[in-house]
């Protein structure tokens, strides 16, 4: 074949070409050689000499296709209305395939002649130009355009009615499996004929099919919802709706273009869920209260899909968890109320966390509700004027686990419970109150050697540090360190004694603590004449300490010291652990069996409070007898020579080390003092940087700064502001009553 342009007889060439075109479009057999010849004919016509015949070829081909589709329409119609879908589909299947082949036969025309005239893609998409309708199209596009005009236009109403009917039957479960392919194919033809367009190429599909389809679907589901509501209770309704939604999704995939999937889903949800939101919402409360997990799973997935569906359910959960929690905390009673408190809070938290994971797929909004509920239960005030006891109870719980008293539990179990308790800790608002109680209890455990294990103590401090920061546990850490370094200190002291060849006569150890780190109030300090038996130890240690540590002053805390005493005056020998003051009292009975209180107190120089406390404890232990009911200066104390105990080794310190209500009171008022100092410091800091501030702004800033550790009352902040005005750190500005300025 020659590529050189030449004269061509159009009529003759077209006559031959047309025959092949007819075969191609009806999918009849075209021999390869014929195909090749016609392929070059198209070329020859396009480049014909003296003038190209491309435009004529285009017009003739258009005319041919126009007639062809018109004939097809007649054929489709003649098959009868009942067979419309099927015959349309058959004609379309053949035509759409044929037109694709034809497009290839006209390759030269499409690529050289027509593409050149076309607007660039960018011009169509971004410009406001619309392609001129008169403009020539590629043959494939032309074929679809003609199909649209000559076939779809005249048939569209009937076609769509049959499509809707077919899908409706499918919904009723009466669909014929053989028609599914036809329905999908017909719908797809509405998409295919415009697919070549660069812009809005789903318009035809949407206009003639999707819009009426969505309308019909809406109607259907509206009716379906009312029908279901008449025969179902809420559980069944939700189950059916869920089922319908699932089926409709599959149906969309079976029949529709993917751009319609979400729209159909939205329609169903609108009519079956959103339209009946009041009904569904009304059922939430009992469902939540009875914790009907199955129902709630359905409810969650239904409500989640519509706007404004889920908040009410979240709120019902929050209220329910809160009620369950409050019921729990307000009904605690008995000895170990703190264990009950922490453990029931942990159970509550775990139960609802599991439920949220199972039923609400771990939805963060529900976790948020759980947090809010737990927080309001844990910080609940039975009396609004009295702060919650939770921080104290949690500290006690930790104390219980960390003390030797937690018998019968394995180390791993104790460790696990301590780790769990952090969950409760995180919800506590007044973390500073917890800190105070924890610190006092830690001090007692460490000084009285009651810790189960130093590893466990350290691990717990680290957990608190992780949860609340370094500052929060700074003092705990220092206390812990003081105790751990004391071993080393005692070894050094022993070596010192050896080098000085001194024998103390008793086995002596000591804890030397940093005054600032320990919550050791001054209240218990009393004068005390150290018994002769201990004097040497005291003196030698002081000598040693001052020679080793420059510039430090040592203060003995005798009320915290304890020792082991061997009793040799009874039928059996006993070893009793007791506090130093008790030891000192017993030592005075060396030369006599009875003494009066005044004599003892004068000798030991103890203050009355401490003296009475320790005498009472000795009386309670039955090591001493007294002449009167109450302890007065005249009371005569006698050694109980008949004393006996099954155990030969025991301690009588426990009662003294227990926390008293006064101590709790002291701890709480210490927290209050700390808070005032903290707030005043915060106010000064804020005012120093801002120079001038309105009252409300200042309050807000203070609140946000103190959030992590406690939530101060507004009245407390006001009092601190007043105090600072009195101390002339800040003053009211002359122009406004509610504005302050910093006094440099």
């Amino acid at each position, binding site marked *: 074949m020659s590529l050189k342009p030449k004269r061509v007889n159009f009529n003759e060439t077209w006559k031959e070409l047309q025959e092949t075109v007819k075969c191609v479009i009806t999918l009849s057999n075209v021999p390869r050689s014929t195909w090749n010849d016609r392929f070059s004919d198209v070329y020859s016509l396009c480049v014909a000499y003296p003038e190209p015949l491309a435009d004529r070829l285009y017009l003739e081909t258009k005319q041919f296709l126009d007639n062809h589709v018109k004939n097809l329409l007649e054929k489709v119609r003649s098959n009868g209305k009942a067979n419309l879908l099927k015959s349309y589909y058959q004609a379309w299947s053949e035509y759409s395939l044929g037109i694709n082949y034809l497009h290839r036969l006209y390759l030269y025309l499409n690529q050289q002649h027509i593409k050149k005239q076309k607007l660039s893609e960018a011009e169509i998409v971004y410009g406001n130009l619309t392609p001129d309708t008169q403009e020539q199209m590629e043959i494939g596009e032309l074929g679809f355009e003609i199909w649209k005009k000559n076939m779809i236009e005249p048939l569209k109403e009937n076609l769509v009615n049959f499509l809707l009917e077919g899908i409706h039957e499918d919904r009723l479960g009466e669909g014929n499996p053989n028609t599914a392919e036809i329905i999908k194919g017909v719908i797809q033809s509405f998409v295919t004929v415009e697919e070549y367009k660069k812009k809005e190429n789903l318009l035809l599909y949407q206009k003639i099919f999707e819009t009426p389809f969505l309308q019909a679907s809406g109607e259907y589901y509206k009716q379906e919802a009312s029908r279901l509501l008449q025969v179902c209770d809420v559980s069944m309704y939700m189950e059916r709706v869920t089922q319908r939604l699932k089926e409709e999704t599959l149906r969309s995939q079976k029949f529709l273009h993917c751009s319609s999937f979400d729209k159909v889903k939205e329609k169903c949800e609108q009519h079956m869920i959103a339209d009946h939101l009041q009904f569904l919402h009304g059922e939430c409360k009992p469902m939540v209260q009875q914790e009907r997990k199955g129902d709630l799973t359905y409810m969650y997935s239904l409500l989640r899909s519509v706007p404004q569906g889920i908040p009410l359910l979240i709120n019902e959960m929050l209220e329910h968890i809160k009620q369950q929690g409050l019921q729990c905390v307000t009904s605690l009673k008995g000895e170990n109320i703190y264990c009950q408190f922490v453990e029931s809070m942990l159970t509550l938290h775990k139960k609802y966390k599991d439920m949220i994971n199972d039923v609400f797929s771990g939805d963060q909004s529900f976790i948020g509700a759980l947090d809010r509920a737990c927080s309001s239960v844990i910080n609940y005030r039975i009396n609004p004027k009295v702060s919650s006891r939770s921080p104290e109870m949690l500290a006690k719980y930790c104390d219980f686990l960390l003390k030797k008293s937690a018998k019968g539990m394995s180390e791993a179990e104790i460790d696990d419970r301590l780790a769990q308790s952090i969950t409760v800790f995180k919800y506590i608002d007044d973390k500073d109150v917890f800190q105070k109680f924890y610190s006092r209890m830690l001090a007692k455990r460490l*000084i009285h*050697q009651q810790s189960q294990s130093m590893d466990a103590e350290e691990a717990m401090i680290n957990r608190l540090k992780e949860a609340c920061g*370094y500052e929060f546990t*700074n003092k705990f*850490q*220092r206390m812990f*360190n*003081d105790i751990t*370094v004391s071993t080393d200190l005692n070894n050094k002291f022993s070596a010192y004694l050896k080098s000085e060849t001194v024998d103390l006569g*008793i*086995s*002596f*150890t*000591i*804890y*030397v*603590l*940093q*005054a*600032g*780190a*320990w919550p*050791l109030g001054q209240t218990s300090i009393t004068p005390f004449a150290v018994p002769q*038996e*201990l004097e040497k*130890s*005291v003196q030698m*240690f002081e000598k040693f*300490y001052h020679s080793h*540590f*420059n*510039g*430090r*002053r*040592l*203060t*003995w*805390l*005798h009320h*915290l*010291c*304890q*020792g*082991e*005493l*061997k*009793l*040799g*005056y009874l039928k059996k020998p006993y*070893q009793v652990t007791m506090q*130093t003051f008790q*030891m000192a009292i*017993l*030592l005075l*009975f*060396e030369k006599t069996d009875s003494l009066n209180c005044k004599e003892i107190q004068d000798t030991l120089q103890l203050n009355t409070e401490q003296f009475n406390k320790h005498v009472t404890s000795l009386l309670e232990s039955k090591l001493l007898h007294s002449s009167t009911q109450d302890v007065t200066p005249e009371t005569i104390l006698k*050694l109980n020579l008949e004393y006996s105990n099954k155990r030969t080794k025991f301690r009588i310190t426990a009662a003294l080390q227990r926390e008293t209500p006064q101590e709790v009171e002291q701890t709480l008022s210490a927290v209050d003092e700390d808070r005032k100092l903290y707030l005043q410091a915060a106010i000064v800091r804020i005012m120093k940087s801002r120079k001038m501030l309105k009252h409300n702004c200042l309050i807000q800033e203070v609140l946000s700064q103190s959030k992590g550790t406690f939530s101060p009352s507004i009245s407390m902040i006001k009092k601190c502001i007043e105090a600072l005005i009195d101390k002339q750190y800040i003053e009211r500005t002359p122009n406004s009553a509610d504005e302050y300025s910093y006094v440099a």
Partner: protein
Amino acid sequence: MKVTIKSWTGVATWRWVANDDNCGICRMAFDGCCPDCKLPGDDCPLVWGQCSHCFHIHCIMKWLNSQQVNHQCPMCRQDWKFKE
């Protein structure tokens, strides 16, 4: 002997004996530590000069290092000598 002491565990606290409450260099309380340390006490001790002024050891060492020629007490400007 009716009663004999087998063992005794003493408890005592210590604090710095300083003329001031705060370090004259870093202004932190002697109960606490210098700004470079985390824990007060043995890890951040105090030292005294012969002029009887007292500082965190870390603070005075930094100060002395920063002085090119004369090593003076930052409080009283006397020559700095550690008290033995």
